[in-house]
């Protein structure tokens, strides 16, 4: 297993040397989706508190990073870290009120948060450019961004591994399984959920800032779309929520599928994605790895 992972990582590290621009960009996108789906999984896959507004952390990171690069002249790697920090701050601010809500209300509150954030960004035009968007100084950093995004995907996945194999991670699962029983057994569920939300905000925040640097231009509709949340959710569900490598598998498989279908049948593409959501929920609620894990008694480390 370790050898397999290391050879995949080595191949990915060597890829920009031989790959085309399109190829490098595509793999970088897969890295981003791994970071997003894996992060969503930390809060929603483990605790069962479904976040319908996870793109808010991505958008917050994108704007924080873009503003620091464009207005303060920060180097982009530093701005990317700041994007992660901004997302964590946002997670604290909304986690305190929203995580006291029960599951379904939390889901809706997170959806609302995203809309609020988008409105705020449009309103504070002086800083954000409002609806006109924000341009960054031109710079071709696609290969360095490829590597940083790759490291981010690895970090998020490693963090998932550490969490899922720890008692902290198991306690997060007790919240999904039976929150009342968890409390009655001495588990402080609120602070566990809060910690999970903070950890799940880092990846999207950094990814958002990297994406902003890579594209060179952001606007509210490009960094706060519901579609990004839906995509990360579908990827995590498809691969297996609550598992370590489920989001990795889901991100890679669905990104590739999406590219193929999108290129060939641009009009049925949304339809296909919708069909996958319904199919997964109905036929394979645990996702691919979740199913294998249950059926073959695989350890939690998959």
């Amino acid at each position, binding site marked *: 297993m370790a050898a397999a992972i290391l050879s995949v990582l080595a191949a990915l590290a060597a890829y920009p040397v031989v790959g085309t621009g399109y190829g490098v960009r595509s793999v970088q996108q897969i890295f981003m989706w791994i970071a997003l789906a894996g992060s969503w999984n930390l809060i929603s896959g483990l605790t069962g508190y479904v976040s319908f507004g996870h793109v808010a952390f991505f958008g917050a990171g994108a704007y924080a990073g873009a503003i620091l690069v464009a207005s303060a002249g920060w180097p982009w790697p530093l701005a990317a870290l700041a994007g992660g920090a901004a997302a964590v701050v946002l997670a604290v601010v909304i986690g305190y009120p929203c995580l006291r809500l029960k599951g379904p209300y939390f889901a809706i509150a997170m959806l609302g948060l995203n809309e609020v954030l988008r409105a705020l960004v449009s309103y504070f035009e002086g800083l954000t450019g409002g609806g006109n968007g924000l341009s960054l100084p031109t710079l071709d950093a696609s290969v360095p961004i490829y590597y940083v995004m790759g490291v981010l995907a690895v970090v998020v996945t490693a963090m998932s591994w550490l969490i899922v194999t720890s*008692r902290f991670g*198991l*306690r997060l*699962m*007790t919240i*999904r*399984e*039976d929150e*009342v*029983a*968890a*409390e*009655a*057994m*001495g*588990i*402080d*569920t609120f602070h566990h959920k809060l910690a999970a939300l903070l950890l799940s905000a880092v990846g999207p925040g950094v990814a958002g800032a990297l994406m902003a640097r890579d594209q060179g231009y952001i606007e509210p509709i490009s960094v706060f779309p519901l579609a990004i949340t839906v995509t990360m959710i579908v990827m995590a569900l498809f691969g297996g929520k609550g598992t370590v490598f489920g989001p990795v598998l889901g991100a890679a498989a669905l990104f590739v599928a999406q590219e193929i279908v999108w290129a060939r049948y641009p009009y049925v593409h949304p339809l296909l994605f919708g069909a996958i959501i319904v199919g997964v929920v109905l036929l394979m609620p645990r996702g691919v790895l979740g199913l294998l894990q*249950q059926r073959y*008694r695989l350890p939690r480390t998959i």
Partner: protein
Amino acid sequence: MPPVLSVERVRKSFGGVAAVNDVSLALEPGRIYGLIGPNGSGKTTLFNCITGIERLDAGRVSFRGERIDGLKPWQIARRGIGRTFQIIRVFPELTALENLLVVTRGARAEAERRGRELLEFVRLGDLAGEYAGNLSYGQQKLVEFVRMLMTEPTLILLDEPAAGVNRTLLNDLLDAVSRLRDAGKTVLLVEHDMKVVMGLCETVFVLDHGEKIAEGPPGAIQADARVIEAYFGR
């Protein structure tokens, strides 16, 4: 010594109906108490009031001399009150052993050792790696019982532990309860099987329509006219 648990004039209503009405009781350390009463008489609600799952409408609850009503359930649990549920609440997609591990802090290896020991003790050692949701009803009850023990409580609340459990398992369980008492723990037991209550408890409280109608040693309770009426009358 102050009572381990003191419940004073506790009241809890649901939609105008008093599920627990002005109930007071005190538990001394190292004893097993019974809590009986017809279905719907408020036994489970009283447990929920003690463990912080329900907020009190009136009254107070003190544990080892300190007020605990108003605390969060997890805070109450950490102070040393453990419970099981009438309707099983294991964590189904965690293994039996993981169900026990999650309630522990401190060194993990030591927690695993103790967890396996407790599973052995209820004869579930071979099923430590099985998902709790795949175990039989009786086995899940045992997992819940030892999960509660993992928290090392000083006061143990058991809500109908015998219901749906076969004879052999039941005897193991009752044995365990006596041993806990011998180790100085206090137990409050909700049970319908009068034989169990009579054999185990020194003092029995009787609830009817949310009110405490009797308290005393099992023999006297069985002869109490109000208790007989609550169970067989009307």
